């Protein structure tokens, strides 16, 4: 029809008004009806509902594992129903403070690590001290004290991370490892993954010389610069170089010789063209996706990005190993638990909540998590058999084995940006300026220190 957008409206307006009024009335009735329905569907009958909130949005495999654990828990506890609310990490982090201080928080919720989150809530008395439950269920036997300190302990004044009471416990873990394309490596004459930092730099140079992208990289969402900086500090200065920054120990500073070395390394890798061309335009998962397509010798990846898509024939060409250290010691890597599970002070079912947390962090649960490709906090005795049973692609198996060896035999360290709330943004913007040449190594380190130093003193 030729409906031209011009000309004034021109019907008898009485009829028109009637239509409008009728329309509004119809909508109002519909709204009221809907309101009626939604209020009518509430109300329970003698069962206890445990409201559990998680921040695992996007992790399809993990959520499926939790669904299984929840139904097992419900089967073992007649009369208990789990209401499992899934949110994105960002949503949980951004609303945690409001929820926890509100009148009806969830009975169990994941709470982010760090001074801004767990520290602040512990100080304000919004979380339940789990020390008694930890003793009752003997959680210390399940997770190494390093992991518990990293993810769950905080001093009651919110100042010292890794000390004081236990407020939460992580159930799965993630670590940052070096992905390598073994097929490309073989073509370049590289026989095995690098064992030392010098070998890594040699391999990068070889790839560059032969026209292969040495290192898949993407700085667009800021994760990879923060990981690489953490890994470089760890490679040069050992676990304490990162731990001191994050736990605010031994007068920490980002203007140390180790940090200087790390920044210079970042700069030289960028200058030598080791990173993907145009890496400022890619995000972490885009870099990973390019790596999985066979572009690039190495990639720095979080274990949660696995499995690498492809047929077993294709994926067996990849492996995930620990980022090598300068001294060759280790295995050390950036590794941390998922957001720890906590019980808000205003939870309505504290004991049941603790029982639930105990269940999902138990050895039986570890098997379920492992079978879905997630990294539990401790290795089952029959690890190899369990991994074989899970029928995972080769790189995922490597990731589980190497990750567990870091957690149990080596030193897991936290992400460097946990040290101060503004540090992540400072690393992201600073790194891109450093690499583009608009910022010197010295001013890059000052930029980081400005985001870190004042925060450390403000807590004292």
């Amino acid at each position, binding site marked *: *029809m030729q*409906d*031209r957008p*011009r*000309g*004034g*409206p*021109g*019907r*008898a*307006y*009485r009829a*028109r*008004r009637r*239509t*409008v009024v009728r329309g*509004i009335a119809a*909508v*109002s009735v519909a*709204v009221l009806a*809907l*309101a009626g*329905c*939604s209020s009518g569907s509430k109300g329970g009958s003698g069962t206890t509902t445990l*409201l559990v909130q998680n*921040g*695992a*949005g*996007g*992790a*399809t495999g993990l*959520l499926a594992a939790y669904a299984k654990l929840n139904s097992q828990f419900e089967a073992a506890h007649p009369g208990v129903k789990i209401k499992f*609310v*899934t*949110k*994105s*990490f*960002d*949503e949980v982090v*951004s*609303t945690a403070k*409001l*929820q926890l201080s*509100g*009148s*009806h*928080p*969830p009975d169990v919720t994941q709470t982010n690590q760090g001074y801004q989150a767990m520290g602040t809530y512990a100080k304000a008395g919004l979380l339940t001290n789990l020390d008694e439950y930890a003793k009752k269920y003997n959680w210390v036997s399940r997770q190494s004290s390093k992991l518990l300190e990293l993810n769950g302990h905080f001093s009651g004044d919110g100042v010292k991370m890794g000390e004081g009471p236990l407020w939460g416990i992580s159930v799965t873990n*993630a670590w940052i490892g070096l992905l390598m394309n073994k097929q490309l490596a073989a073509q370049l004459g590289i026989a095995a993954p690098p064992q030392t930092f010098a070998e890594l730099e040699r391999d990068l140079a070889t790839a560059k010389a032969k026209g292969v992208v040495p290192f898949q990289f993407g700085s667009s969402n800021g994760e990879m610069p923060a990981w690489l900086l953490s890994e470089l500090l760890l490679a040069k200065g050992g676990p304490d170089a990162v731990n001191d920054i994050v736990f605010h120990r031994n007068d920490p500073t980002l203007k140390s010789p180790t940090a200087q070395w790390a920044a210079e390394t970042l700069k030289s890798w960028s200058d030598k063209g080791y990173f993907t061309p145009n890496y400022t335009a890619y*995000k972490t*998962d*885009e870099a*990973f*996706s*390019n790596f*999985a397509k066979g572009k690039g010798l190495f990639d720095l990846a*979080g274990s*949660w*990005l696995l499995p690498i*898509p492809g047929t077993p024939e294709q994926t067996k060409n990849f492996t995930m190993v620990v980022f090598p250290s300068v001294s060759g010691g280790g295995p050390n890597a950036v590794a941390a638990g998922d957001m720890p599970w906590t019980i808000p002070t205003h939870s309505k079912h504290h004991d049941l909540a603790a029982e639930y947390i105990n269940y999902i962090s138990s050895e039986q649960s570890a098997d379920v998590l492992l079978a879905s490709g997630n990294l539990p906090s401790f290795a089952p005795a029959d690890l190899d058999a369990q991994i074989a049973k899970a029928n995972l692609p080769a790189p995922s198996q490597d990731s589980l084995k190497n990750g567990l060896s870091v957690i149990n035999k080596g030193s897991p360290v936290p992400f460097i940006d946990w040290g101060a709330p503004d540090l992540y943004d400072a690393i992201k913007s600073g790194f891109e300026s450093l690499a583009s040449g608009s910022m010197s190594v010295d001013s890059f380190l000052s930029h980081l220190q400005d985001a870190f130093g004042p925060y450390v003193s403000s807590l004292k």
Partner: protein
Amino acid sequence: MKTSRTQSAVGHAVLVAAALVALVPLIGVLLMALGSPQDVGGKVSIGSPHFSNFQVVWDQAQLPQALRTSLLISCAATVLTIVLSIPAGYAFASFRFPFRTLLFIVVLAGLMLPNESLIVPLFYDFRSVGINDSLWGVVMVETALSLAFGSFWMRSFFLTAPASIVDAARMDGANTFVILVRVLAPLARPQVLALAVLTFVWTWNDLLVPLVLLSGGQQITAPMTLAVFQGQHATNYAYLSAAALMTALPVIVVYAVLQRSFARGVLAGAIRE
């Protein structure tokens, strides 16, 4: 009188180009929604379509419940906004009263308040009077947020409403209320419909207000369901796109339906009696 063939051809070409520019990125979204859920990264590829993504999303994201909540909030906020904006715009455009300009600027400022910083004090205020986690609290805030635009928009209409019609009505002895309801409001139909569409879309798509104000409870709105597919580090773009398309569908339907009735009114032609 009539536009020439060439003009018409050029004009149509420009409009088709404008429509294509709007569509191409959306086709990207559609292709992502049909992509393999195993893919990592926002990949747009033309392969075998995975229609099952929509089924998975429907099951996983508690969509039926969320759509109902969103519909309730959006309809209520839209009706309230219209019912309140029409008289407010009328007042600003057609009456003289003390502090009119000042009040208008204050209302206009409401268009500009950044809700990112407002919403947190609002949460504490709501909690202190006990209306946190209530749908009506969300409706009232969404209405308040749309009212600034609504009053401004309706005022613009009333400012340009044909004076002769109003004069005629006044000569017939109609009072200001009768003029509004019988004469001006019917004329404002395109404006009211545009306002209804916008308020509905704004309320429907708003994430922050319901996220904060319903944070403790169990109610979720449509945009909140997208979170299930967004992770701390990795996002499932296939499911996310499928969910985004499904949550946008009701808005598109509302727009298309309102637009048809709107176009019918226009066909009737010029103002006559």
